[in-house]
Each structure stands twice: as C-alpha cells, then as structure tokens.
C-alpha cells in the first residue's frame, strides 16, 4: 500500500473518469452477483478480531462488539469480506506490476522527512481505522456501496468525510505541499 511508482517509466494513470466508470462496473457486478457492495475495513476488523481471539479469547468473550465477529464457535475469517480483501490487494498489486508502477517509495510532500511521513501514516491510519468502524464502514463499504444504492446514511457519511478532510487540510499542508 506504500507500494507506489517512480522507477523507469511507469505508465501514466488512467483518466479518472474512465477508472471511475470501470470501478462503477465492478461495483455493479458486486451488487448484481452477490447483493452486497464492496468492503475493505470490514475484513481488517475480522483479522484484528481473529488475532485478539487467538491471543486472548477471554477479552473477546467479554466484548459484545467483538462477539459479532469472533468468540465461541464463530470463525472470524470465514467471511466473504476477508476473501474480497485478498482480491483487492492482489488486484492492486497486479495492476501496479503490469503498469510498471511497482516499487517501494514513500509518497510525501517535499518538506517532511520519510520518517515523519511514516509516523503520520501510522497516526492517520489509527484515526481512520477508528473513524471507519465508528461509521460502520470505510469509504468503500459505506461511501461507494451505500452511495450507489442511495442510502441516506452513506451520503451523509460521504459528505462528512470530505467536510472533515477539508476542515483540517490547511493545518496539515506541510505534510503534502
């Protein structure tokens, strides 16, 4: 995921509308074939639940939220979202490979060190992971999928993500520009 481009001659990215339209077709295929949209953070939630269940089953058994995923005879990884997440990583990897964009680089603004960027990625990840579970879904699960099928909550969520990001973007501009 920090795997990005900058070597030799990486192919340019696709036109955003074209990429979006193709993504829309995939999203439609998901609804058409399985009745559910796409999801990514749900899978990570299940990995976390599985690890916690492995290390400390008692803490899972006392946690009503985690019991939905693990604990008892529930198998947290026996879920379609987990397989979808494997597909997502594989798909991103294969595309980057085909287009010659596969290399280890750290995307960042010119004014910060790589180390700061890593720290910030970690910190931002914590906040996003927390926010995603708070909102019951990440940008793909809540935003894209729910937005497509016109869920009111998903549209409110999408607006909130952009509002939250624009509200603080100025204060973190040093990270990126």
């Amino acid at each position: 995921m920090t795997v990005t481009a900058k070597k030799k001659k990486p192919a340019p990215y696709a036109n955003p509308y074209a990429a979006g339209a193709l993504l829309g077709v995939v999203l439609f295929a998901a609804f058409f074939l399985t009745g559910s949209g796409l999801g990514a953070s749900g899978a990570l939630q299940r990995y976390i639940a599985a690890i916690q269940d492995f290390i400390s089953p008692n803490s899972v058994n006392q946690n009503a939220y985690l019991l939905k995923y693990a604990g008892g005879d529930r198998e947290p990884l026996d879920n379609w979202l987990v397989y979808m997440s494997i597909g997502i990583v594989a798909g991103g990897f294969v595309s980057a490979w085909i287009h010659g964009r596969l290399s280890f680089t750290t995307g960042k603004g010119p004014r910060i060190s790589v180390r700061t960027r890593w720290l910030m990625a970690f910190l931002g990840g914590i906040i996003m992971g927390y926010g995603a579970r708070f909102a019951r879904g990440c940008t793909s699960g809540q935003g894209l999928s729910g937005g497509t099928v016109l869920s009111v909550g998903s549209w409110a969520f999408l607006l909130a993500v952009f509002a939250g990001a624009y509200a603080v973007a100025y204060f973190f501009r040093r990270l990126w520009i």
Partner: protein
Amino acid sequence: MEHLFVSFPGPFPIQAMYGKIGFYTVTLLIGFGFGYMLEIGGFAKSEKLAAQFYLTDMTVFKVMFSAIVVAMVLVFGAAALGGLDYNRVFVNETYLWPGIVGGLIMGVGFVIGGY
C-alpha cells in the same frame, strides 16, 4: 430449495447454489477488480489522494463519484428492467449521527495518513 436454482433476477444466492467456496471465489474476483481499478485510478499513491484536499488534483472525487454514478445507473437500470431485485440488495443501514461523526474522524485521518 430447488427453486433457488432458477431464481432470476439477481442478486444470486451464490452460497446456496455453489457453496461457500463458490461464493468466496466470486467475492475474491470482485475484490481483484476493485483493487485493479483503484490502482489504475491512482488510489495507491498517497500524494495523489491528499492532493484532493489541496484542490490541485481532484482525482479522488472524480473516480469515486463517477464510480457511484455509473454503478447507480446500472443498478437501478437493471432493477427497472427486472434484472435485479433491489429489495434483496444490501443497503447500508442508516445510523445518522454516528455515521457523520465517524465520517468526520475519517476525513481527518485521511489528510494525516494520506489514504
């Protein structure tokens, strides 16, 4: 149960038709397509994503919104023609305020973390 096999329109009870392995294979392939499309759109590159919030590159908005628009027209077009049963399609349940607060938190994390 035998009627499940002739059930058109979609969505299809893949798990009942082909078992768990079939269902997971389908979701794996969908995930593959999802990851692939995200990558060609530039979603694996954090500067590109963060640029959205400094108004220099609106790729995030363009990709996401055109995906929603295209998928929406396809979903409801298929439903109108009788090819897809919208009532059986999962619609994220609305918890309005937790969704908004979670969204705001995510937005902040997006700018800091860059994804």
